[in-house]
């Protein structure tokens, strides 16, 4: 039976990647990195710093970032590397269809991602400590990783099409990766508000982080967060379309001239920015619609909170800020801002904030038109359980016999868990064992391969 060209190329590339050692080396480095991260997390957990959900989220985030980085590197090498090694010409001289060659190479370059996802499973399992977050992390990690890893691999290949040297394609690919990564490293405040939300929605690397953080750690639901799936999906579609419909048919022995590349790159950039802009406008509108109602709602006064969910251990503190804003064109009256804590586990019993917070009520004298006031709050989680914290803004009534309309903020869902210990010593066997198993597997593969070939030295036969 004759195989399809793409499958022949895929099989050859796969053997080259894995038996050749490049993918194995990268995956081994990734595994060691995961081991270190897991151990550090476990040690932090021992000190009661990070709850399991956050540990799982942080580890998954690293797994996805590194997994797609591996795809990017392999993609960036796939064409320019062959040019450099003078192996591309032989391939182009066969009747193999250019697009099928690219498909085969692409599928092989994506292959490290499933391996990376498989490897992270035991780490997530040990960090989750039996929490349901394990299954959720696996599912959503697989979804986002399977969107991003092919997208970044395709991006690397796309860059590789126009590079004669590996150095160039690696450098440009790394630059693009950092460009996407940069906004995720901005301070927390820079990621809030309209510009922050805009960046989160547009950036295909940040949207999954936002989704995973809210879904896994803050117990938010899919209907609230589905828009975060848009930018990675659209990003994948754009890059795949560019790779297979635009670049692949023109696969050639030498990269294009710089000028031509510059024009193409500018066009690509312009089109991509336009598309991403449209998406971002759409998604930010959707999100804005969802998120802005509690803040303003057309009322003259509004109150917002910069936290929606927090999981802590009993005895830990939670800090957050509220912003009270006067949206009207008149000066407001004096304002009382009061904190309420409701126990969600006991038929809505009110928690006496006496022991829970040093700031039970705060006072704002007046707010001018458009003026806002930020108040800081601290809540100590005294007992374990689920709580709703919310703030009520009470405008002082205009006089005797009159009343005013209190305004409630959105709530903070606080989960306080009993103190649990994750023994770093228990994590250590995983942190060390998995890389060792991988090394042994590698050794076994190489040994089998060595037995299958003659190891002749140089010289004519």
């Amino acid at each position: 039976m004759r195989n399809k060209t793409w499958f022949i190329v895929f099989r050859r590339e796969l053997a080259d990647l894995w038996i050749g050692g490049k993918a194995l080396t990268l995956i081994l480095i990734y595994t060691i990195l995961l081991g270190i991260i897991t151990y550090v997390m476990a040690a932090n957990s021992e000190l009661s710093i990070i709850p399991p959900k956050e540990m799982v989220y942080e580890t998954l985030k690293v797994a996805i970032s590194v997994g797609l980085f591996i795809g990017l590197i392999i993609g960036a090498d796939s064409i320019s590397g062959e040019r450099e090694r003078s192996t591309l010409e032989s391939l182009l001289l066969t009747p193999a269809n250019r697009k099928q060659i690219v498909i085969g190479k692409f599928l092989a370059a994506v292959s490290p991602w499933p391996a990376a996802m498989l490897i992270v499973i035991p780490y997530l399992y040990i960090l989750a400590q039996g929490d349901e977050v394990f299954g959720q992390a696996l599912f959503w990690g697989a979804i986002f990783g399977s969107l991003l890893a092919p997208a970044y691999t395709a991006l690397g290949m796309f860059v590789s099409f126009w590079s004669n040297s590996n150095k160039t394609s690696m450098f440009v690919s790394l630059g693009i990766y950092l460009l996407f990564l940069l906004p995720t490293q901005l301070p927390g405040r820079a990621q809030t508000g309209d510009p922050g939300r805009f960046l989160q929605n547009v950036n295909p690397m940040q949207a999954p982080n936002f989704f995973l953080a809210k879904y896994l750690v803050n117990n938010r639901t899919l209907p609230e967060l589905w828009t975060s799936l848009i930018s990675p999906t659209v990003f994948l579609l754009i890059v795949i379309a560019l790779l297979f419909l635009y670049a692949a048919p023109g696969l050639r022995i030498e990269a294009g001239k710089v000028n031509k590349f510059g024009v193409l790159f500018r066009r690509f950039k312009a089109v991509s920015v336009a598309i991403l802009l449209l998406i971002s406008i759409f998604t930010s509108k959707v999100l804005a619609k969802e998120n802005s109602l509690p803040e303003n709602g057309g009322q003259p006064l509004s109150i917002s909170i910069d936290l929606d969910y927090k999981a802590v251990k009993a005895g830990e503190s939670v800090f957050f800020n509220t912003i009270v804003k006067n949206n009207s064109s008149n000066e407001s009256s004096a304002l009382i801002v009061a904190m309420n804590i409701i126990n969600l586990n006991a038929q809505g019993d009110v928690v006496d904030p006496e022991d829970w917070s040093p700031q039970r009520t705060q006072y704002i004298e007046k707010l001018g038109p458009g003026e806002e006031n930020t108040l800081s709050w601290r809540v100590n989680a005294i007992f374990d359980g689920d709580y709703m914290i919310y703030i009520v803004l009470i405008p002082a009534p205009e006089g005797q016999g009159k009343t005013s309309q209190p305004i409630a903020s959105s709530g903070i869902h606080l989960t306080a868990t009993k103190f649990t210990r994750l023994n770093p010593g228990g994590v250590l066997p995983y942190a060390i064992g998995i890389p060792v198993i991988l090394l042994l597997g590698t050794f076994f593969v190489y040994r089998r391969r060595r037995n299958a070939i003659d190891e002749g030295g140089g010289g004519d036969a």
Partner: protein
Amino acid sequence: MAFVIKRKKSKSTGENSQVLYAKDLRKSYGGRPALRGLSFELNAGRILGFLGPNGAGKTTAIRILTTILEPDSGSFRVAGIPSTFPEKIREKIGVLPESLGFPKNITALEYLIYFSQLYKRNKSEARARSLSLLTEVGLEQRVKSLISSFSHGMRQRLGIARALVNDPKVVFLDEPTLGLDPRGQKELLEMIVKVARGRKAGVILCSHDLPEVESICDDVLILNMGKVIAKGTVKDIIGQPRDTIRIKVPSRSLAYARQHLAKFKNLFKVTSGEKNGWLIIQFSDLTRPKSKEYSSLNNNILMVLINAKIPILGLETEGGRLQDVFLNLTEGVNK
């Protein structure tokens, strides 16, 4: 200066079916012409030496003919398939590029099976074909060896096997003997002759090693600055009359000798050389190479001098080898 000699049909192979035909191929890079109207044809079983100084347009021509590059204008056919069907053409050609790289961690057999499968053979056919080719190029003992352990000569042989994996009608070999030792060169050249004669494939051999081209090629095409400056059979190209001969006579006899040779003034010009005692005889008309007068001219010149009792101390000819023709035709290119 350009001259074209009508190709004689090969007697050695008896083959004359056309496998490659190129007409007025042109290609420019950013306004700089690399190929200016390349036209030629190649018949089955013949070896065409593709010559030219560096930058003459050989690589561009080969890349166009192997469908790696598109010409700006002109057309070609390989085994009757027009250039508008590049994928079909690639099924009919085999190429050994000048800088052929090999993947790491792959054996010779795996490498050939891979390429055989790309030519739409199933795995068992591909395996059988690969083993047969490896035997043909003398690598049967190293089928399961990693290519990375091969010498340069073995890699070139493997490259030729790869070029033959699809039973091509036309084989392009770009500097196949570059970097090989004399024995390796000889073996490879024998292999190339076998490919042409045994498989009845047309072979285009790009090489800077002119004695090598002269020894195995039937036809020669010389490119200079993108233009064909000579084409024809090797025999006809190097069978051109010597452009110049130099005869050394005693210095005191120079004037006497010139006086005796004056009767040939319509046929050549006689000057005294820069070196003492050399007569430089430059033939004036190269368009009459086959005239009887020319064929015995050297003898007549010598006879005149001998009869005049002028001692002949030395005789040198320019021309007569492909190298001389090539240098003469491409003179001044690198200046």
